[in-house]
């Protein structure tokens, strides 16, 4: 028995032991990984200790998504361990996913021994070169004396400022060699010290604008989630105190409770009518922890044309990147909200209450459109109805519920019809749009929350992109529920082909699908197939009640599209609400056609 994970006084250890000790000192309990030649010393050290649990995935991409799910549902850093070469390259999609969505992940990659680097050795890849634009930062450790400090620094970098993925590339000779262990330094980082506390002047400028607003809107994103549950609580306090409408981005769902009367729903391409029109018509916009993504703004030169914009973000490079703003506030969302509330309370200027009451009346008028209404008639299950019933039934049960998704129509329906009352309950691939994200992410969530209900709302095409992870569910008895909205199409591709390419469904039909019931059974899980609307509720209850993993294959209407929709290159006030209105899409400009 090695003495790997005892107290961390300065002493000599092998590189592999140093890595594990540093992980432990940074509070790591679980890592997601897949072994291989270059990381054998680390796996050997893992074998000889019990402090860190290793979850064996079936593909390295899934290890990163699982770590993302773990990180997003706990607020901790997710840790991945993969081998050199293909292990590292397979992880790249997950790394970019974490980069785009600002998720703190550390990925340890094996590397050929230092003397072979550059020789095209077996399973060698230029991992730091490949992952440089795929990570927030990366390291190649060539000196064992720097190993411990590099791991400590990686944790600091990954979770500080705007969080993100960090790769540490570990040559095998470094893992085998012996060197000193050192604890995390107390001194501040030499160069990377992001601003988290906002400048008082910027907060005062923001509050002056907000107090004077007649038609305000709060637009909150993933930055509020990343800041922690306290930021979400402060967001609620501020929005209620100021009697402002609040909308969330896809990444921000759960930052403000969906059932709160001041919630407008999600905004953007498939956002609600009321959220988008409020963004379009507001006179003061407070963006907190969101980045004016193209899915949110629609056509930039028509985006919220008459508003003063306040942008609070922890990343200065997000400010004035897409949209020029009037007040820039650099800081952590929680710190910004705290400062805003304090300054708001201190500021004498009264709000224009009659104007705000009139603004709410306008919003209520837009809400009256019922943009998310659908008609569930007959026996064919509408996908919207399937998600809505899933939400209502889990809500009635009162169990702690976490939702992950894959990417496509089902993802948008999940965002529209599943309500989130708390942060960290919703894991979806926002920026990169990674099909195959949901199942491994759900694994990571379930590892972190063994007793919670974890559901991957999936599409039949996306789920096949990481279906091998059913094996991981079986191995660790993870009772993840995979809820497939099966319309036999890559639905979002088909929707765009229908709306923009003359209904020429090029390669978007899900041909030769597996029998998902037997597929589930082959992976030691429960399989269910539901085809009739009348069976839906019972099936959902049965799925939830089953103690192990389940694939519920829900046959839904094949031709349903996601609405509302802002077509590419259109403005917020040019949304399409319903299928009947598609005439509007014929007017998509050439500029719009090139957008994705």
């Amino acid at each position, binding site marked *: 028995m090695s003495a790997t994970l005892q107290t961390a006084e300065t002493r000599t250890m092998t590189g592999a032991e140093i890595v594990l000790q540093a992980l432990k000192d940074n509070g790591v309990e679980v890592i997601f990984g897949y072994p291989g030649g270059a990381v054998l010393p680390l796996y050997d050290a893992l074998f000889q200790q019990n402090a860190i649990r290793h979850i064996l995935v079936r593909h390295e991409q899934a290890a990163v998504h699982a770590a993302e799910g773990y990180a997003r549902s706990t607020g901790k850093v997710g840790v991945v361990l993969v081998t050199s070469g293909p292990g590292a390259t397979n992880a790249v999609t997950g790394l970019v996913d974490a980069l785009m969505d600002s998720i703190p992940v550390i990925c340890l990659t094996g590397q050929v021994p230092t003397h072979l680097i550059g020789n095209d050795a077996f399973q060698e890849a230029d991992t*730091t*070169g490949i992952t*440089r*634009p795929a990570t*927030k*930062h990366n390291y*190649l450790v060539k000196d064992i004396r720097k190993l411990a400090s590099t791991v400590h620094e990686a944790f600091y*970098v990954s979770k500080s*400022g*705007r969080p993100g993925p960090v790769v540490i590339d570990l040559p095998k000779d470094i893992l085998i060699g012996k060197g000193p262990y050192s604890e995390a330094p107390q001194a501040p980082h*030499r*160069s*990377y010290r*992001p601003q988290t506390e906002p400048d008082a002047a910027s907060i005062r400028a923001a509050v002056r604008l907000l107090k004077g607003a007649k038609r305000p809107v709060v637009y909150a994103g993933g930055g509020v989630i990343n800041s922690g549950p306290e930021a979400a609580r402060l967001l609620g306090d501020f929005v209620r105190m100021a009697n402002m409408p609040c909308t969330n981005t896809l990444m921000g769902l759960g930052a403000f409770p969906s059932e709160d009367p001041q919630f407008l729903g999600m905004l953007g391409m498939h956002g609600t009518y009321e959220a988008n029109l409020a963004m379009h018509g507001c006179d003061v916009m407070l963006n907190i922890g969101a980045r004016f993504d193209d899915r949110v703004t629609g056509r930039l030169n028509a985006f919220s044309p008459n508003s003063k914009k306040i942008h609070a973000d922890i*990343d*200065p*490079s997000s*400010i*004035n*990147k897409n949209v*020029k703003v009037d007040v820039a506030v650099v800081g952590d969302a929680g710190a910004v909200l705290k400062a805003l509330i304090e300054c708001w309370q201190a500021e004498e200027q009264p709000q224009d209450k009659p104007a705000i009451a009139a603004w709410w009346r306008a919003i209520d008028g837009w809400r009256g459109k019922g943009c998310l209404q659908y008609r569930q008639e007959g026996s064919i299950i509408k996908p919207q109805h399937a998600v809505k019933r899933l939400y209502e039934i889990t809500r009635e049960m009162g169990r702690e519920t976490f939702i992950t998704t894959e990417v496509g129509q089902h993802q948008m329906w999940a965002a529209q019809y599943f309500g989130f009352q708390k942060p960290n309950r919703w894991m979806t691939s926002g920026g990169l749009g990674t099909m195959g994200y949901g199942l491994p992410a759900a694994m990571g969530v379930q590892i972190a929350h063994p007793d919670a209900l974890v559901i991957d709302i999936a599409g039949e095409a996306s789920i096949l992109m990481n279906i091998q992870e059913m094996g991981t569910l079986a191995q660790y008895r993870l009772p993840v529920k995979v809820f497939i909205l099966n319309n036999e199409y890559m639905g979002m591709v088909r929707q765009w082909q229908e709306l923009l390419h003359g209904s020429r469904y090029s390669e978007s039909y899900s041909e030769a699908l597996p029998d998902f019931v037997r597929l589930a059974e082959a992976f030691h899980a429960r399989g269910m197939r539901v085809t009739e609307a009348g069976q839906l509720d019972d099936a959902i209850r049965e799925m939830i009640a089953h103690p192990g993993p389940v694939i519920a294959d829900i046959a839904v209407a094949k031709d349903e599209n996601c609405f509302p929709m802002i077509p590419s290159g259109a403005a917020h006030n040019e949304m399409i609400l319903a299928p009947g209105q598609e005439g509007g899409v014929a007017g998509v400009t050439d500029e719009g056609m090139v957008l994705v």
Partner: protein
Amino acid sequence: MPDLAEITQRNATIAVLVENEAGILARVVGLFSGRGYNIESLTVAPVDADRRLSRITIVTSGTDMVIEQIKAQLDRLVPVHKVSDLTLEGPHLARELALIKIVGKGEARMEALRLADAFRARVVDATIESFVFEMTGSGDKLDAFIALMRPIGLTEISRTGVVAIARGSRGL
């Protein structure tokens, strides 16, 4: 009507103080290529051995919004200590060094020597049929000298790219 600032391009000379470590140049260059920014010139060298610091000078161009983006993107790289927009922050000196090889005989050779003298270029190597001139100055001055040399035997140029520093007591 679009804001004038959104369409007017400007040049910027940006000084970046970075950790002197492997891969830092690749990070900076990758940032520029990945995000589609221009690099007109880029120079790098260690400036502080004790503190392991290097200084990168980048000459770039873009709208104000793009240049502000470039600075913010550079600043968020982990090994970057400081980013300074010398063009915006006040008067600064910008210098470039060039080594220029002229091959020729007779009158052309004499003319090259006369012009070099006028431009205060130094002869750092000579054979009976060639000179290598060393010249330091602004990019414009180097351009002008090189243009004059072109018809009289210019065969090779090596330029360092721009290094720059703020005038006065202000430090980075």
